C-alpha cells in the first residue's frame, strides 16, 4: 500500500487552479522526486498535501486515510512532516528548541528521537545551544529536517532542500536525505537540481502546467530522451 497517493488532485489559492490533475503515489521505502519547469505546480503539490492550500478536486490518501484539506496540526500527529523551502528554522531559537518545536504535537518522551536526530546530524549536537539563525545554510537545512523528523513522520515532504546551497553542500544534503530514507522515512521532495535528484530517486514525477507529464523510476526518467531534452537541459 502506498504511504501517499494523490489522485487527479485539483487545487489553488482561490483563483484559477494551479494543480489540474496531479497523480503521485509512493511507498514509505521510496524517495519520490517531483521535477518540472518553474510554475509547474511542484511546490504547490506539496502545499496541497499539507493542507496549506485548498484542494477542490481529486483525493489525497495518506496511510489509507483521506486527508485533503486537513490542517497541519492534524496531519503532523498522523505522521506527515513538511520542510518549507525558505524560512524553515526559528532563527531566534536555539537548535535544540527548534527540534523541540517539531515535537510539539507529541505527548510521549521525545528525547530518544532527539538523540536519533543528533546521531544523524552530529553537527547539530555541537551547535544545540546556538540560535539557529547563526548557522550556515547547509546546517540550517539540517535543523529544518531535524525539526520535521522530531514528530517521527512516516513521510517527509521537502520543498527544494538544496535551494541556495553551494554544490558541495547539495551533495551532502542529498546524502543525508538518503540516510533519513534508509531509517524508514518516506521522502517526497521537489527539486531544481533535477538530474542530480532523479539519480537517487526511486520514483520520479515530471510536472508541467499542474499535470503529470512523465512518471517512472528515477533511472527511467533520466534515460527517457524526451524528458532529458525538455526538462533536464539536454
Amino acid at each position, binding site marked *: 500500500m502506498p504511504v501517499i497517493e494523490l489522485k487527479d488532485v485539483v487545487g489553488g489559492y482561490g483563483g484559477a487552479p494551479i494543480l489540474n490533475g496531479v497523480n503521485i503515489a509512493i511507498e514509505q521505502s521510496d524517495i519520490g522526486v517531483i521535477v518540472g519547469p518553474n510554475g509547474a505546480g511542484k511546490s504547490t503539490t506539496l502545499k496541497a498535501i499539507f493542507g496549506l492550500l485548498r484542494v477542490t478536486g481529486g483525493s489525497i490518501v495518506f496511510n489509507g486515510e483521506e486527508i485533503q484539506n486537513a490542517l497541519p*496540526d492534524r*496531519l503532523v500527529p498522523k505522521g506527515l512532516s513538511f520542510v518549507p523551502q525558505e524560512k524553515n528554522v*526559528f*532563527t531566534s531559537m536555539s537548535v535544540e528548541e527548534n527540534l*523541540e*518545536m517539531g515535537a510539539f504535537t507529541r505527548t510521549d518522551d521525545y528525547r530518544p528521537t532527539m538523540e536519533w536526530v543528533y546521531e544523524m546530524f552530529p553537527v547539530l549536537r555541537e551547535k544545540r545551544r546556538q540560535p539557529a539563525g547563526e548557522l550556515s545554510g547547509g546546517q540550517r537545512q539540517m535543523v529544518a529536517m531535524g525539526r520535521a523528523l522530531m514528530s517521527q513522520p512516516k513521510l517527509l515532504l521537502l520543498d527544494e532542500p538544496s535551494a541556495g546551497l553551494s554544490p558541495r553542500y547539495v551533495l551532502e544534503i542529498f546524502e543525508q536525505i538518503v540516510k533519513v530514507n534508509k531509517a524508514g522515512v518516506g521522502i517526497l521532495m521537489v527539486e531544481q537540481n533535477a538530474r542530480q535528484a532523479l539519480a537517487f530517486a526511486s520514483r520520479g514525477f515530471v510536472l508541467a502546467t499542474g499535470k503529470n507529464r512523465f512518471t517512472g523510476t528515477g533511472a527511467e526518467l533520466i534515460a527517457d530522451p524526451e524528458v532529458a531534452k525538455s526538462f533536464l537541459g539536454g
Partner: protein
Amino acid sequence: MNELIFFFNNVMIAGVVLGSIYAVGAIGVTLIFGILRFAHFAHGDMMTMGAFVAFLLMTAFQAMGFTTPFLPTGFVVLPIAMVFTAIIALGIDKGFYAPLRARGARPVTLLIASIGVTLIIQGLIRLFFGSGTWSFFETEQKQLIRIPVPLEGVTRTINFTQPQLLMIVATIIAVVALHLFLTRSRLGKAMRAMADNADLAQVSGINTKLVVRVTWIIAGGLAAMAGTMLALDVNLKPDLAFNIVLPIFAAAIVGGLGKPFGAIAGGYLIGFAETAAIFNWSVLARPFAGSLPFELPATVAIVPTEYKLTVAFVILVVVLLWRPTGIFKGAST
C-alpha cells in the same frame, strides 16, 4: 546630601515605579504584536478595566467584612482581578478580533478595531462608574514608608508608599515567572516560535489557536496588574491608562517589538527618562550656589511637567535612529 535624597526620591523611586507600570503594560503590547502582528491600541483601556475589576472586588471583599491586616485589600485581590481580566480579554478577542482574523483582515484593520474596543471599554466604564475618580484608599490608610539616612546633617528621609514597594515586588515576580514560562515551558517556547515565524509554527503542528489564547490570558492578566498598580499609586478614573498608552507603545517599540525583555528595558528607560526630564535639577546645584559665577535659577528642568509625554517620543526617535528595530532587535513589520 539632603538634595541627593530629594533626587533619589523624585527620580530613582519615581522612575522605578513609573518604569514598572510601563514595563508590565508594554510586555502585553509586545506579546500581542509578536503573536498577532497588530498594535493593540486598547491595551491601556484593558489596564483601566483591570483596575476597575480589582476595585469592584475590593469593594465586595470589604462589604463582606473581609480585611487584610498588612496589605491593601486592592493588592490582595489582584490575582483574582488578573484572572477575571484575562477572561474578559479572551472574550474581547473572540468577539472582535478573531472574526476579523478568520476573514484575513490586515493588521491595520485590527488596529482600527482595537480603537473601537478602546471606545467601548471607556464607554462602559463611564456608564457604570461615571467620569469621576475613585480611590482604593477610602477606608484604608495608604502607608508611607520613611527610611532615615544615618548620616550627619541629613534631615530628609527616603520616602515611598507601601503600594509602590508592593508594585516593584509584584513586577519582579511577574517578570521572573514570564521568563521561566517563555524559556522552560512547552507552550512558552511555542509562543516564541510563533512570534519568530508563524508559518513555520503552523507547519510544525503547533496549535496556533491555543497560543493565541495563552497570549491573551497573559496580556490580560498583566494589564490588570499594571492598571491596578497604577490605580493604587494614583487614583482610579475612566481614562487612567488611556493617557499612558502612548509611552507604553514607545516602550515596546524602543525595546524591539515582539521582545518581552525589550519591553521591560524600554519601560524602565522611558520611566526613568520621564522622571529625570521633569526633575528640577537646580536643587542639586543649590549647595554650590555661592561659588557659581551666575545666579542659580529656581527651576531647571529639561521639560515642564505638562510635557512629560514628549520625553517618550524623543527617546523613541533617538533609539530608532541608532537601532531601527529597537534595542533587542525586534520585528520591523
